């Protein structure tokens, strides 16, 4: 039972990071029908911004983090929207899918070519102590990652539901034409969504890199799992993406422990197929309408 509890909590912690990436998928889809297949690389990159700041510019870790956040917002939020999405949006979803795939490859290979192909250590943000909870040894790092990720999602929900800008963003997501008629600055709302995605990618990056190490290829698995999590949970709901991320994190851990480590990566795909067959809109998704 202790083993199960440990696996469960550890899975929730990893799943919460998947959830941050999955929410990014959901937000961009809601705001601009963008499926970002470079999402995994968006999570890989900010860790290298931080490392470049500390290693090459000699900055302190907190300053490097602040600059990495700013760069994430600028490049992964603003730049991504202006350079890739805006010109391609009128041409439909498919060109965007292909362009983001290309962007993912370019980002990955760029880091490999111009930074390093090797894994790099990333400073741990939390203590490596463990706590004894219900007889199971639960790491402080897992609890902190879980709390921060869930806290970020809660803040995002609060922002979307409790502020004027948030409600304007929701209106934009539901019906951009009507929102514009009602005076909502639709373009600016879409930009905000991209900036939030950049910030979520940054957060996921600094939470996962101390565990996985910073490596150019980290995005390959993360992007795929986050995409599956978003579909499993419901592509049109934040709470769906959150549930999908947590579910896949836990299932991945449990299947590695109780079924087979060799086939662990197949389990989320099997889940995806079942969900598509049984409940195409996802566990918490809505069959109709789009809300952020």
């Amino acid at each position, binding site marked *: 039972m202790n083993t199960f509890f*440990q696996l469960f909590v550890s899975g929730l912690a990893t799943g919460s990071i998947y959830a941050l990436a999955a929410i990014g998928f959901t937000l961009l889809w809601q705001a601009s029908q963008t499926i970002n297949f470079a999402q995994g690389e968006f999570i890989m990159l900010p860790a290298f911004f931080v490392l470049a700041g500390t290693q090459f510019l000699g900055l302190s870790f907190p300053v490097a983090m602040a600059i990495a956040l700013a760069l994430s917002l600028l490049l992964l939020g603003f730049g991504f929207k202006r350079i890739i999405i805006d010109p391609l949006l009128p041409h439909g979803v498919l060109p965007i899918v292909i362009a983001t795939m290309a962007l993912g490859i370019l980002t990955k290979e760029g880091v490999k070519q111009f930074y390093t*192909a*090797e894994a790099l250590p990333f400073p741990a943000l939390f203590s490596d102590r463990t706590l004894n909870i219900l007889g199971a040894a639960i790491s402080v790092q897992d609890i902190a990652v879980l709390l921060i990720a869930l806290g970020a999602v809660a803040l995002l929900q609060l922002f979307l539901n409790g502020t004027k800008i948030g409600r304007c963003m929701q209106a934009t997501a539901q019906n951009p034409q009507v929102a514009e008629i009602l005076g909502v600055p639709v373009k600016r709302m879409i930009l905000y969504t991209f900036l939030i995605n950049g910030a979520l990618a940054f957060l996921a990056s600094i939470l996962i890199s101390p565990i996985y190490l910073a490596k150019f290829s*980290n995005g390959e698995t993360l992007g795929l799992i986050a995409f599956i999590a978003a579909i499993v949970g419901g592509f049109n709901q934040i709470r769906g993406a959150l549930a999908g991320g947590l579910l896949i994190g836990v299932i991945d851990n449990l299947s590695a422990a109780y079924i087979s480590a060799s086939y662990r990566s197949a389990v989320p795909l099997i889940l995806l197929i079942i969900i598509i067959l049984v409940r195409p809109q996802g566990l918490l998704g809505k069959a109709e309408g789009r809300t952020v």
Partner: protein
Amino acid sequence: MKKRAIAAIAIAVALSAGLPNMSWADTIKIANVIELSGAGATVGSNWRDALKLAFEEINAAGGILGEQVEVTDYDTQTDPTISRAMVQKAIDDGAYVIMGPIYSGSVKVNMMVAQQNGVPQLTGAEAPFITDMGNPYIFRTSFGAQQSMPKLVKYLADEMKVKSVAIAWVNDDFGKGGRDSFVAELGKHGITVTADVSSEVGQADFAADVIKLKSSNADAIFAYLHEEESARLLKEIRKQGVTQPIFGETTLMNQKVVDLAGEAVNGVRGHVGLTANAPIPGVEEFAKKFEAKYNYKPDHNAIKAYMGAYVVKHVTTKNGKVDPQAFADALHGLTITPADEPGILMETSWDDKGEVNRDSFLVEVKDGKQTVVSTLPKL
């Protein structure tokens, strides 16, 4: 008559262009077929840098038999299929000797190409099967797992009084070969295996693996994975507050693991064939030169490559000719001492299968630094 002469010259030129070996007259071509990207980039970079350092020294000292050595890197991308193509390309380019690769799965598929073309290959691979396939052109630069495991298991049984072990291993040719050799040795000493946990190359999340190792309540944990995965495993082991002692073989004790895992690697013990911290003057001097040039500590792969370069120099000089067949013939059954060739660093022998034999070390990581606990003699 004039036309015939022109035709004869044209045929001679065409024929010579088709013979890659003709280029040996200018420089000696060494092909470095190695993991420079993908999961093996860490070990491959160490190997490449040390090989470059060694051949720069050799060239600065006049080259081999008065000829300069030209080293070309071929990136396997840690992919067996690509490594095979790279070995073929290296041979087409006129390679005299092939250095690398390190990953056993790659060597398994590319060594046949070198064998078919009669080109000697000095590999960093450690899986036992490499030297059991009857290939007269393959030579190790480090121990095969079947040689290092007996030394390690004897230490676990006699010194540490271990009765049960939980094993974490990577599910590829390297990991499976090492795991099988280790389990076979455990049986000889009456040590039981309480958990047998395999993982994948490039695996990032080790939470479930560590929970299984921990809950097995073994006296000790044995980890046999590649460097990056070893670092992730150790971080997770520390994260989950595992208290069992952790043992490993060369890869676990690698400097790269120390760099990546940080404090999580402290207290880990293991057997290493080579270490930059070996109390041997030649190795110490090499480590200093390497660190001064590249600004990081060399790992065992760097030492292997450095020694390998000097093996090429010594054997070729001994033969008095740049001849791949003569090279392969001469290296079987050869022992090279630092007195014969200072670049060899430690006395090393090769048997008739290309297996290497030399002293080895038991080390422990203390405060992020490998400390040699004892030196184990040649088998």
